[in-house]
């Protein structure tokens, strides 16, 4: 176990340096750090993502003390059940049990020691490779996962005890073609709006799409083309659900989209290009670094 002490600032910098563009990491820090005491960091060697780990830290003020480490393949995204001591990790791999797909795991969290215990892992659907983001739906009834490699969304029912059930719905996307530029679907981020709508950014398709869940199936509600010519990446939503923020996938320019009924209706440029965003879908996830403060 690493006994180094991490400061929030030092970790934030490391995360940004490694992950390239990380709007989600920053907003996670600012909204949850103050009041909570545990932090989880997922990381993996870029050349051997399957040998990744999730590290637990105790956070006291600015001090981070390493508590425990658990092996976890390419933990590209971490999220916590809203009411139960269950952590979910999205494994950004291209093969699981020898088949072309990623996986998600549920872990029990010991709030006293910070130790994680693997509860179980659910493979994703075929072709759902390099999943890199997920959200829990309203009431934590489902886990909604975006896989950049295969351009696929998966929905997994979650039991009242927080267990993940096998994939119940699959949505296979396609890319876009314009002016001799052809791109693949790369849904790299998702969000839950306060009204229960699921939102996803897909830079290859150049869309923001809102989904509803009907009888365990994923139904597209609205699809809006944003950031024409480059597409949106790294979606983040304001707490009141009125605005979505995205990076332009190639320019790194930040844009704000006003949301009405889950549909992006008006887009405004907020900031000039800030970061280099990786173009290859794999590059989005190859560092598999993630951070969660609870």
């Amino acid at each position, binding site marked *: 176990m690493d006994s180094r002490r991490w400061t929030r600032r030092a970790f934030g910098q490391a995360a940004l340096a490694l992950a390239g563009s990380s709007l989600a990491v920053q907003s996670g820090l600012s909204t949850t750090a103050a009041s909570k005491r545990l932090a989880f960091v997922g990381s993996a060697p870029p050349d051997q993502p399957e040998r990744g780990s999730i590290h637990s830290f105790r956070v006291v003020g600015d001090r981070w003390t390493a508590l425990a480490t658990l092996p976890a393949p390419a933990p590209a995204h971490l999220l916590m059940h809203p009411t139960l001591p269950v952590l979910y990790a999205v494994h950004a791999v*291209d093969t699981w049990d*020898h*088949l*072309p797909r990623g996986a998600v795991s549920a872990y029990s969290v010991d709030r006293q020691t910070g130790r994680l215990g693997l509860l179980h892992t659910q493979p994703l*659907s*075929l*072709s759902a490779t390099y999943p890199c983001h997920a959200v829990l739906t309203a009431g934590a009834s489902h886990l909604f996962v975006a896989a950049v490699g*295969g*351009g696929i969304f998966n929905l997994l029912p979650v039991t009242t005890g927080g267990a993940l059930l*096998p*994939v119940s*719905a*699959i*949505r*296979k*996307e*396609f*890319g*876009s*073609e314009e002016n001799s530029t*052809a*791109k*693949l*679907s790369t849904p790299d981020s998702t969000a839950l709006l306060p009204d229960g709508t699921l939102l996803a950014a897909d830079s290859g398709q150049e869309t923001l799409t809102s989904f509803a869940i009907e009888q365990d*199936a*994923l139904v*597209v509600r609205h699809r809006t083309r944003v950031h024409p010519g480059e597409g949106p990446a790294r979606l983040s939503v304001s707490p009141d659900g009125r605005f979505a923020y995205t990076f332009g996938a190639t320019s790194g320019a930040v844009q704000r989209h006003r949301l009405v009924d889950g549909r992006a209706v008006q887009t405004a440029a907020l900031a000039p290009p800030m970061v280099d965003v990786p173009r290859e879908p794999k590059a989005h996830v190859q560092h598999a670094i993630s951070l969660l403060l609870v």
Partner: protein
Amino acid sequence: MIATVTRDDERYAQLHRTRNARFPKDDADSVARIELCETAEDVQAALQRAVHAGLRPTVRSGGHCYEDFAVNNPGGVLIDVSKLNTVAASPGGGWQVGAGAMLGDMYKGLYELGGVNIPAGSCYTVGAGGHLSGGGYGLLTRQQGVSADLLSAVDILTVRHNGTVQLRHVNRHTDADLFRALRGGGGANFGVITVFYFDTLPAAPKQLMSGGLSFPWDTMTEDKFIEIASTYGHYFATRGCEPDTWPLFALMGLSHKTERGRINVSATWHDMDGSADLRVPTEFLDLFLKCDTQVAELKDLQTSAHAPSGGRFQTTPCVEGKHRWNTKPWLQATVDGNSGGIKGYGSARGKYKSCYMKQNFTTAELKTMYAWLTRDIPNVNAGCVISVDSYGGRANQPHLAHETAVPQRNSILKLQYQMYWTNPDEDAARLKYFDDMYTDIYSANVADAHVGTPFHGTNYEGCYINYPDADMTRYKFWPELYYGTEGLYPFLQSVKKKYDPNNIFHYSMAVRA
């Protein structure tokens, strides 16, 4: 017109399944609907509808896939092209075969149209769609080549980056890379095939003569087993390489030991010119007289996929130079029996594995086979057979390894491991036995890195993609087992990226780009 069959339709119970009763594994793996298409336009519309709805399409022609590639598609769409079964003369010359045609109908149709033949498989109900795109071989392969070798063009529906379905007519000049990939690269990797075209085809034989020998398990010993199998292998490693023997197709069924069970060796002679000259197959069968034989009169003429297990046996001893031959006109012999299971919706559970062999068996290999074939599976009645088909001849034209997606061009035998049962409770025990047997057999003549598989080397030339075995995916090198080590798989990956960039067509052993 498309007929859509959904879960609330009473036809669904049968139509969502495949010939192998193991698949789909359960309800959760099953498709949401089946689109029964009649025309290429129907297929295009059904495919477009699936892609736009974000649903995964899978494809079925004859439904004879050994694994669950087409019917394991949770909530997806199964596009059934079995009604695209026209076998006709092509307007521009040559012949065309609809992807949904069953092989039996294909033989009959081509014979009626021009007395010609495609050297394809022996089972009547196998579909052209999966069979021809995965290579396709049969009794006439030594004489006429692999089916995909003869292919001139293909109509295929692919899906562009933006999700639009596109009909392509591909051949040596147009989309030549895709055309090569479709000549044996395996079904449903790149799109949905609607028609196969053949500019020229060889003439069908005049008649077929078949004879055989059998060796009872009751009196079998390890030495005798080794002698029989190595006699067979030696012939195809030596004399069987000479062109005058290529009309000979032979099959050796190394069955699991059972009471009254037998090991059969059959010889099928294709009489190409009507001369009824049986010297070659007689010479072949004579080789086994030293092995204490009985004569087998074999009813059906089939490749290993449906190895004869019984037949009627004579009690009189065999006499050198004299064997009982069963003679039939070629077409009758080929389409009689309607084998393979009606429409491909079967009740038998099956598991299959394969191996291309470049040399005769080694003694160590045969000892291991013997040990497994005489070993009991606790509480299970072993129903497995290692079928050893003759191979080589015109299949071994080296330049075709680079023009097609069939890299195996040095083999003399093609083995198919088959296991059949009906009780789902036996799945685990049978699959384990079968896997352990195969792993053990291919642990002898293989370099450390590839132990457990017939990896390309001195003895073996990998596996056959039309006999897919999902167990092989546990090896990182599984694509090389099927596609060789000479760059074919990277080529197929580049074709996949270009023509199916969204990976719309995927399954457990699809080309992974």
